[in-house]
């Protein structure tokens, strides 16, 4: 059964943790953050940004993994970047996939190239841990 898709007007977030996805010395985020397939994101329409900090800290931040940022992007912006990426135009979708630990959980099912993932990372609004 196909899962409901998130609308273009929704914002989704992704946890960015060091050391696997963030190099704090060189200040770089790994393109793997969005390569997928089945990249996990979370919906701000279901849980607020402030609540996401608590949720991600409780469930994702386990030594040596440290939550450094939450990256935010509109679903419509993701889709626009995919359509405009000349090297490999990609129809990006975001599917609702709630889980016990996170009812806002969603997934990007597509496998994205490293170059396209870099474009998405550049477009993220990065909220830094306080």
């Amino acid at each position, binding site marked *: 059964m196909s899962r409901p898709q998130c609308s273009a007007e929704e914002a989704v977030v992704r946890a960015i943790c060091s050391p*696997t996805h963030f190099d704090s010395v060189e200040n770089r985020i790994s393109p793997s953050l969005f390569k997928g397939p089945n990249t996990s994101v979370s919906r701000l329409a279901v849980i607020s940004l402030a609540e996401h900090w608590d949720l991600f800290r409780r469930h994702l931040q386990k030594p040596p993994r440290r939550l450094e940022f939450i990256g935010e992007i509109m679903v419509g912006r993701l889709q626009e970047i995919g359509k405009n990426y000349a090297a490999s135009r990609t129809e990006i979708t975001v599917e609702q996939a709630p889980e016990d630990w996170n009812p806002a959980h969603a997934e990007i099912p597509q496998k994205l*190239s490293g170059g396209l993932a870099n474009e998405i990372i550049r477009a993220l609004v990065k909220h830094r841990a306080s």
Partner: protein
Amino acid sequence: MPALAAEPSPSFRPPYYLQVICESTSGSNLDARAPSQPTPDVIEQLLIARILGAHGLQRIQTFRQYQPGWDFGEGQPMSESAYRYMSQFLRHVILPPNKRPSVFLGATGNLELAWEDESNKRFQAEFSPTAVEYSREDTGAEGELDASEIIRAAEILSV
């Protein structure tokens, strides 16, 4: 039959990675052509420290300690084959001056390098036990090559 050369010809140049190591250790008694010098493992680590910095080398050592399941039950240990391919890649790629690539570990155990050129255009290469996936933003080149074509990938991503 021509005589075998007893000395390297005037045009002899050590492999790039040995030049790098010798440059980084100038003033020491390390010589690229001398016998009984560092073992291949030590040379490889010196090379990685020279290009990725002590910080990069430290990250790799940290990743090496990750146990199966590190990514919420699904993370794979760092692939030593991927490490060898990354090391081979670093021996051949020409990086922008004053840029140190970052090294990352993926949930599948793959290693990934990411860096930018002087115009802030992004480059990346991901190494698995069988292939290298790459992209460079300045030319729009991206693709995947068999691991046997690591040197070709290094050429594609050289500045």
